[in-house]
C-alpha cells in the first residue's frame, strides 16, 4: 500500500512540474517573497526618514513635545509583514489551483476512468494525491522561507537570533497549514463538482468568504483595509452587536486566526518580542484548533468523496 501511495505522490509531483501552471505558481511565489521583502525594507526606510523629517518640522515650529517614534520596539521580522497578506491572499488562492488541478486533470483527460480499473485502491490514490500536494507546498514554503531568511540577514547585515529564526520557521509552518487547507478544499471540489468551472469557482467563493466576509463581520473592516498588515493587530469593531459577533465568530474566522498568529510571530507590535511562539499559539488556541479541525474535515471529505466517486461518469462539462 505504501509503495502505491508513494508512486502516486511522485507522479503527482512529476506531472505538476511538467505543467506550466505549477512553474507559474512557483515563480509567482518566489517573486512575491522577494517583492514582500523589498516593499518591507523600502517602506520601513522611507517611514524612518519621514519620521526624522517630522521631528525637524516639530522642532522648527518651537514645540517642546517631541513625538515618540511609533516604530520603537518593532522587530526586524516585520520587514516581511507583507508575506502574511500575500500568503492569505495569493498563497491560498494558488493552493486552491494546485488542489483543483490535481484531480480535475485526471477527469478531463479520462484517466480517472482507467486508473480505477487497475489494482489501485481509491484510498491509496487519494492519499497519494494528498501527499503529492503537501510535498509541493512544502517545497514552495521552504523556498520562500530561505529567501526571507537570507533577505532579512542581507538587509540588516547580521544573522538572525535563534529565537527569531524559530518564530520565522513557525510562521512558515503555519502558512503551510493554511495553504494546505485551501489546496484540499480545491481537491475536494475537483472530485465532487460536476463541472470544471464549478470545481474551481466554488472554492474561490469559499476563499472570498473566509478571506473577506468573515473578517468583515469580526472587525467591521472593509475588504481593502483587511489587506493592510498594519490593521492585523488592531481590529476592534464599535457597538455591542459587532463586539458580540466578533466574540462568537472570531475562532471560526480562519484567516483572522492566521493573520493574528502570524502578526504576533513576526512581532508586528512592540509586545511581540516578549511573547514566545508557544504562548502565541496558546493565546490563539481556539482559532488554531478550529483551523486544524477544518483541515481534518477537508481531508476526510476528499477521502470519502473519492471512495464514492463514480469512475464511470460521463465526460465532465465546462
Amino acid at each position, binding site marked *: 500500500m505504501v509503495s502505491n501511495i508513494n508512486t502516486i505522490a511522485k507522479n503527482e509531483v512529476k506531472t505538476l512540474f511538467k505543467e506550466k501552471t505549477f512553474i507559474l505558481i512557483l515563480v509567482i511565489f518566489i517573486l512575491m517573497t522577494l517583492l514582500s521583502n523589498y516593499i518591507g525594507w523600502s*517602506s520601513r526606510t522611507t517611514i524612518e526618514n*519621514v519620521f526624522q*523629517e517630522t521631528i525637524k518640522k516639530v522642532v522648527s515650529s518651537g514645540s517642546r513635545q517631541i513625538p515618540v517614534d511609533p516604530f520603537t520596539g518593532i522587530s526586524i521580522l516585520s520587514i516581511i509583514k507583507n508575506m502574511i497578506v500575500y500568503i492569505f491572499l495569493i498563497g491560498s488562492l494558488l493552493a486552491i*489551483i494546485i488542489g483543483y488541478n490535481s484531480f480535475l486533470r485526471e477527469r478531463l483527460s479520462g484517466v480517472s476512468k482507467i486508473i480505477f480499473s487497475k489494482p489501485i485502491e481509491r484510498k491509496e490514490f487519494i492519499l497519494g494525491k494528498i501527499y503529492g500536494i503537501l510535498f509541493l507546498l512544502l517545497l514552495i514554503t521552504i523556498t520562500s522561507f530561505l529567501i526571507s531568511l537570507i533577505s532579512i540577514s542581507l538587509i540588516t547585515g547580521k544573522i538572525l537570533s535563534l529565537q527569531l529564526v524559530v518564530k520565522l520557521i513557525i510562521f512558515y509552518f503555519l502558512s503551510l497549514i493554511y495553504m494546505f487547507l485551501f489546496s484540499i478544499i480545491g481537491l475536494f471540489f475537483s472530485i465532487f463538482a460536476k463541472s470544471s468551472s464549478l470545481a474551481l469557482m466554488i472554492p474561490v467563493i469559499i476563499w472570498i468568504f473566509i478571506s473577506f466576509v468573515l473578517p468583515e463581520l469580526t472587525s467591521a473592516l472593509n475588504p481593502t483595509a483587511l*489587506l493592510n498588515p498594519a490593521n492585523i493587530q488592531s481590529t476592534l469593531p464599535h457597538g455591542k452587536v459587532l463586539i458580540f459577533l466578533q466574540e462568537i465568530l472570531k475562532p471560526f474566522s480562519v484567516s483572522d486566526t492566521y493573520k493574528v498568529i502570524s502578526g504576533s510571530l513576526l512581532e508586528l507590535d512592540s509586545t511581540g518580542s516578549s511573547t514566545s511562539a508557544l504562548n502565541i499559539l496558546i493565546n490563539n488556541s481556539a482559532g488554531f484548533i478550529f483551523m486544524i479541525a477544518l483541515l481534518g474535515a477537508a481531508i476526510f471529505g476528499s477521502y470519502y468523496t473519492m471512495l464514492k466517486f463514480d469512475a464511470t461518469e460521463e465526460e465532465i462539462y465546462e
Partner: protein
Amino acid sequence: MSNFTNPVIVIAKREYIDTIKNKLFLTLIIFILLLTIVSITVSSLDFQGKVTDYKNSIQILKNLGKTSDTQAAPQFYPLQMLRGIINYLEIIGAILGIILGYLSIAKEKGKRTLQLILSRPVKRSQIISGKISGNSLLIISILTIVLLFIFLIIREVAGVILSFSEITRVVLTLLFSFIYIMFFFCLSFILALKMKVLTQALIICLVIWLVFVLIIPQIGDTMDPDNQIPGGFFQSLNINKLQEKEIMSKFHTYETTRNAVEESSITKHYERISFALLGIKDTYNGKNLHYIFKDRWMDPVWLLSFLMIILFLQYFVLLNKNTVSWEN
C-alpha cells in the same frame, strides 16, 4: 433585415437566456446580493456603535466636569456605507466578468457550436457584437438589482431614503462598475478563445485578476507611509494635512513610484472615482459632481481606455482566424 432576424440580436438574446440558467452565475449573483446586505448592515452597526461610544465619552467628560468641545461627533453620510460594496464589486464584480466571458466561449467550445455558427452567413464581428451586447445587458440587469438592493437595505437598516442627488451618484458609480466588469469579461473572453485548454484560460484569468485587483492596489496601500500605523502615521504624531504635504514633498520619487504602481491597476481607478462620487473620500464629501469630475477626470478616462483597448483586442482575436483556438 428586420430586428427579429438580426444575428446580433439573436446571439445577444441567446447569450442572455443561456447565462441566467447557469448555476455558477446564479450562485455568484446570490453571493453579491448577500454581500450587499452584510456590508451595509455592518457599516450601519459600526456607525451606531461609534455614536454610542461618542455619547458615552461625552457623558464621562461631563461627569468629570470637563468640556467636550474637542471631540467631533461622528457624522452620518448614507453613501459612505457603500464602501464595502465598492470593495466587493472590485473583487467579485471582476470575477463575475471573468465567469461571463469564460462561459460565453466555454459553452461554444464544449458543444463545438462556434464553428457551426461561423459556417452560417454570420459575420465574425456580429458574433462578438452579439455576445458583448447580451452580456452587457446581463451586467446592467445585475447592477440594477444591486441598485434596488442598496436603496431598500439603506432604507430598512439605516432608516434613510436616498435623495435624487444621492441616487444619481450611485447610478454613476454603477455605470463605472459596468465598465470595470466589462473589462474583465473581455479579458476572459479573449483568453478562453485563444487558449487550447479552457481551464488554463480560467486559471490565467484568475492570476491576472489577483495581480490587478488585489496585489497592485495592496502594494500601493502598504507603501503609503500614512498606512503604516492603524489610524494613520501622521495623526499619531499630531501632524495636520498641510504639514503632512510639506513633509511628503521631500519624498517625491517614492510617492511618484507608489502612485505609478497604483495607476497601473484598473481597480484603483475604479475605486478612486467611486469613492469620490460617493463621498467616501473625505475630500469629495459634499462636493458637487462638476467639482468631482473636474478633479478626477483622469480616472474615467483610464477606465474607458482600459475597456477600449481590450475591446479592440477582442475583435482582433476573433476576426483573425489564426489566433483562435477552436478545440477545447
